[in-house]
C-alpha cells in the first residue's frame, strides 16, 4: 500500500519525539563503559577485552542496577498499577534465582530448558498468590503473601535441603555458560542486562497502555466501580500478577547468573521492602520511576557504604525520611505534578509576546 509507508514513518517519528528522554538515557547507558574508560585513561581496546579497571567495575555496579530495575518494574506492575500491596514479592525473585541455579548446577540443564521451566513455575507461583485474592484484600493480602514468602525463605534455609540450596550460606558454585560469564564477558553481560531492562520496560509500558492495563488501573482507583462496569477484576489482577511473576523470575535468573553466591536474604521481607522503596522513591505507578528508584537506591547504598562506613545505614534511613517529606510522590510522580506548573509558568511569561487571537482573547 503506497499510503501506509508515510504514515508508518510518521508514527515512528512521533514515537521517537515522545520518547526522546528515555532514548537519550539508554544511549548514554550504552556509552557509559567507554566514557568511564576515557575519563580513567584506559584504552578502549582494554574495555572491549574485559580487562580489569574502573570501567569493568562500573559495569558490574550498573548490571546490578539493571537487574534491580527489572525487579522494581515487576513490583510496580502489581503495586503501583494494579494496587495490590504484596509483601511476598521477593519470593518471585528468589524462585527465579534458586530454581534456575539448582537446575543448572545439580541437574546439568542448559539455559533454554531452564528458562522454560522457570516460566512455568513463575505462572504457577503467581496462581498460588492469586488463589487467596478473592478472600483477602488490602493489608490482610499483604500479610498472607508475607506468610507464603516467609515459609519459602525458611525452606531454602533449612538444613534438610543443604545439598541443593546451600542452606544459610547460599547457593554457590553455579557455573554460568561461557558466552555470558560475568567475569570474562562482562561487557556482553552488561549489554544483555541493559537490553533486557529496556525490553521489560517497553513490555510494561505496552501492558499499561493496553485495554487490560487500563482495567488494572481502574481496579486500583476504584475496584467497585470497575466491577459495576462489568469487568471481573479478579482476572485482571491475575494477569498482572502472572506478568509480574514472570518478570521478577527473569530478574532473579539474571541475579543468579551474575552473583557468585545467591544468598537466602533475597527471599526475605527486607528484599521486598527494597523493591517497595525503589518504587516509592521513583514514584508509584509511573513505570519510569521504578528503574530510576532502583538506580538511586543501589548507587546510594553503595557509595554511602564506601564514604560513611558503619554509619551509612543511619544516613540512608534519614534520606528515606527526607524523600518522603520533600518529594511527596516520588521523583517521577512529583516531577509530573510540577511539570504543569512549570509549563504554565513559562506560558505566563510568554503571554505578552503572543499576538492576540482573533477574538481579542489571550490564551
Amino acid at each position: 500500500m503506497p499510503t501506509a509507508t508515510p504514515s508508518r514513518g510518521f508514527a515512528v517519528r512521533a514515537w521517537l519525539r515522545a520518547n526522546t528522554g528515555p532514548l537519550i538515557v539508554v544511549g548514554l547507558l550504552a556509552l557509559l563503559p567507554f566514557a568511564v574508560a576515557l575519563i580513567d585513561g584506559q584504552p578502549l581496546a582494554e574495555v572491549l577485552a574485559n580487562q580489569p579497571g574502573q570501567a569493568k567495575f562500573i559495569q558490574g555496579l550498573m548490571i546490578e542496577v539493571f537487574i534491580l530495575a527489572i525487579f522494581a518494574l515487576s513490583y510496580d506492575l502489581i503495586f503501583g498499577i494494579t494496587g495490590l500491596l504484596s509483601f511476598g514479592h521477593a519470593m518471585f525473585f528468589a524462585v527465579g534465582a534458586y530454581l534456575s541455579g539448582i537446575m543448572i548446577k545439580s541437574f546439568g540443564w542448559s539455559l533454554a530448558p531452564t528458562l522454560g521451566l522457570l516460566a512455568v513455575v513463575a505462572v504457577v507461583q503467581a496462581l498460588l498468590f492469586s488463589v487467596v485474592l478473592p478472600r483477602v484484600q488490602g493489608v490482610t493480602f499483604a500479610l498472607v503473601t508475607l506468610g507464603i514468602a516467609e515459609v519459602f525463605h525458611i525452606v531454602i534455609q533449612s538444613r534438610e535441603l543443604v545439598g541443593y540450596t546451600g542452606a544459610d550460606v547460599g547457593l554457590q558454585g553455579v557455573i554460568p555458560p561461557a558466552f555470558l560469564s560475568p567475569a570474562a564477558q562482562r561487557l556482553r553481560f552488561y549489554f544483555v542486562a541493559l537490553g533486557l531492562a529496556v525490553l521489560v520496560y517497553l513490555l510494561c509500558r505496552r501492558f499499561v497502555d493496553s485495554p487490560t492495563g487500563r482495567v488494572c488501573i481502574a481496579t486500583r482507583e476504584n475496584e467497585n466501580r470497575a466491577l459495576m462496569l462489568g469487568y471481573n477484576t479478579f482476572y485482571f489482577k491475575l494477569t498482572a500478577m502472572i506478568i509480574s511473576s514472570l518478570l521478577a523470575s527473569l530478574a532473579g535468573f539474571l541475579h543468579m547468573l551474575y552473583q557468585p553466591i545467591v544468598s537466602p536474604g533475597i527471599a526475605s521481607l527486607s528484599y521486598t521492602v527494597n523493591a517497595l522503596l525503589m518504587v516509592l522513591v521513583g514514584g508509584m505507578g509511573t513505570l519510569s520511576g521504578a528503574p530510576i528508584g532502583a538506580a538511586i537506591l543501589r548507587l546510594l547504598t553503595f557509595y554511602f557504604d564506601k564514604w560513611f562506613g558503619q554509619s551509612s545505614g543511619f544516613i540512608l534511613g534519614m534520606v528515606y525520611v527526607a524523600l518522603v517529606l520533600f518529594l511527596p510522590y516520588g521523583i517521577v510522580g512529583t516531577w509530573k505534578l510540577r511539570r504543569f506548573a512549570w509549563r504554565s509558568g513559562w506560558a505566563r511569561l510568554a503571554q505578552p509576546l503572543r499576538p492576540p487571537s482573533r477574538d481579542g482573547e489571550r490564551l
Partner: protein
Amino acid sequence: METLRRNRTLLITLAILAFLLFTAIQGLSTRDWVITLLRGISVGAITFLVASGLSLIFGLLDVLNLAHGTLFMIGAYVGWTTYLRPDTLVDLLPPVLLLAAGLLLGPFWAALVGRWRTSRTVSRAWPWAALILAVALATLVFAQWPLARWDPAVAAQSPATYSLQLDQAIKAGQARAAPAPAAQGGLLRLAGAFLGSALLALGLAGFSAARYGGAGKVTGAPRRWALGALLLVTGVGIYTGDAALTRFLFGLDTAWLFLIALLVALVTGAALGALMEITLIRPLYTRPIYQLMLTLGLGVSGIELVQAIWGRTEFNMPKPALFQGSGAGCPATSIVDWLANGCSTIDVLGGRIRTYNELFVILIGVIVLVAVSVLLQRSRLGMIIRAGVQDSEMVEALGINVRQVFTLVFALGAALATLGGIIAAPSMGLSPLMGESLLLAALIALAIGGLTSFPGAAAGSLLVGLVQQFIIKYGQIGIRLPFLEQPFKPTPPLVPASTVLLMVIILLVLPQGLFGRKE
C-alpha cells in the same frame, strides 16, 4: 442461636485450636507441659506489649508503624542505662527538663508574635535568626555538658563490663560504689539550655505566624505556666543535687532501680511517640503508603543510632536481686517463700520455674492487658478511641479533637513497646536487632487476632507464644507419628515457620482474623 450461627467459623476454629493444644499437652508429662505453657504465655506477654500498641495505632490512625520494633529496642537500651548507670540519667535529666520547659513557652510566643506587626521581609527573616541563635546556643551548651558516659570501643568501659560488674555485685549482695561525679558545669550553662529552647520555640512560633498568621488567645494558660515552672524547678533541683542523687540511686535496692527504669522507659517511649506523630506522621495522613516508608526509614535510623551510642555487640542485663537469689531457702516452694528469700526459681510439680521469665513477665502482661482494657472500655478517652477506630471522620464531625487523640494513642502505643523492651531485656539480652524479630511476631499476632481488635491482639500474641514454645519443646523430645519409626523432630527454623503457617491458614479461613469485624 443466631450469634452461634453467625460465628460458626470462628467457633470451629477455636475448637480446633483448643483440641490441638489439648493434644499437645497429652504428649508431655505434667511438669513439662506446665512449664511449656508458662513459657508460651510469657513469650506471648512480651509479644502482646508490642502488638497491642501496633493494633491501637493501626486501628485509630491507619498507620502500620514499622518502627515499633525499634521503639521496643530503644526501651530496652534506655531502661538498661537507667538501671546500670543511673548517673547518666541524673546528668541528662536537667537539660531535658529545661528544654521541655522552654518549648512549653511556644503558645505564648505565638500569641505575642501575632500582635507584632512588621514588614514581610522582617517577619520572614527573624525566625531564622532566632533558630540559628538557638542552635548555636545549644551546641555551645551541650558540647561541654558534664555527662557520665561510657565507651563501647574500650573494653573496660563497655556496656557489657558494667553489666558484669552489677551482676557480680548482686550475687555478692553488695551495693555498688557510685562512680566519681562528673564536673559541675555551672548554673550559667543550665540557663543557656533553657534560653536556647525558649529561642527555638520563639523561632518556630515565628515560622508558623509567617505561614498561617498569628495565633489567637492562649488556652490552658495557668496549667501551662504551672507545668513549665515545675519542670524548671525540678531541673534546677536535680542539677544542684546531682552528686547526692547519684549516690542515693547507686545505693538503692536493684528492685527499686528496676522500677525506676520501667518508668523512665515508659516516659521515653511516650515522648518519642508523641514527637514522631506530631512532626513526621501528621503531615502524611493523606498518603498512607509513604507513611510506611517513613516509619521504615525511622526504624533503620533508630537501630543505627543505638549502635552508635551503645555499640554493636550484644550484652546482658542482670536481673534485680529479687529474682536472682540462690542461697538459703532456694529454690522457693511458694510465692510467699520467693518474696521472702528472693529466689531465682520456684519448685512446681518437681520442675523449676524461673521467677522473672515465667512469673514476673506474665504478671506485667496481665496488668497491661487489664489496664488498657479498662482505659478503652470505661473511660471517655477510651470511648473516643473505640469510636475513632470505627469511623474517625464521624468522631471529628461530632466536635472532638481527633488529632489530639491520635497523638495520645501514638504515645501510648510507643510507651507500651518501650515497656515491653525493658521487661524483655533481662530475659532476652540486649542487641540492636532485638526488635526486628519481635515486630514480625507482633504482626503475625495482629493478623491472627484481627488487625484492629485489642482483645484480638492479646489472643493472637498468646497463640503465637504458645505455638512457638510447644514446637521448641517438641523439637527436643520429638513427636511420635503413627507411620514413622523415628520420632519426628521439628528443626529450629520450623519455629517461625509454624506461626507464619498458622497465620496463613487462619487468614484464609477467617480473612478478618479471629476477632476482627467485617467491614
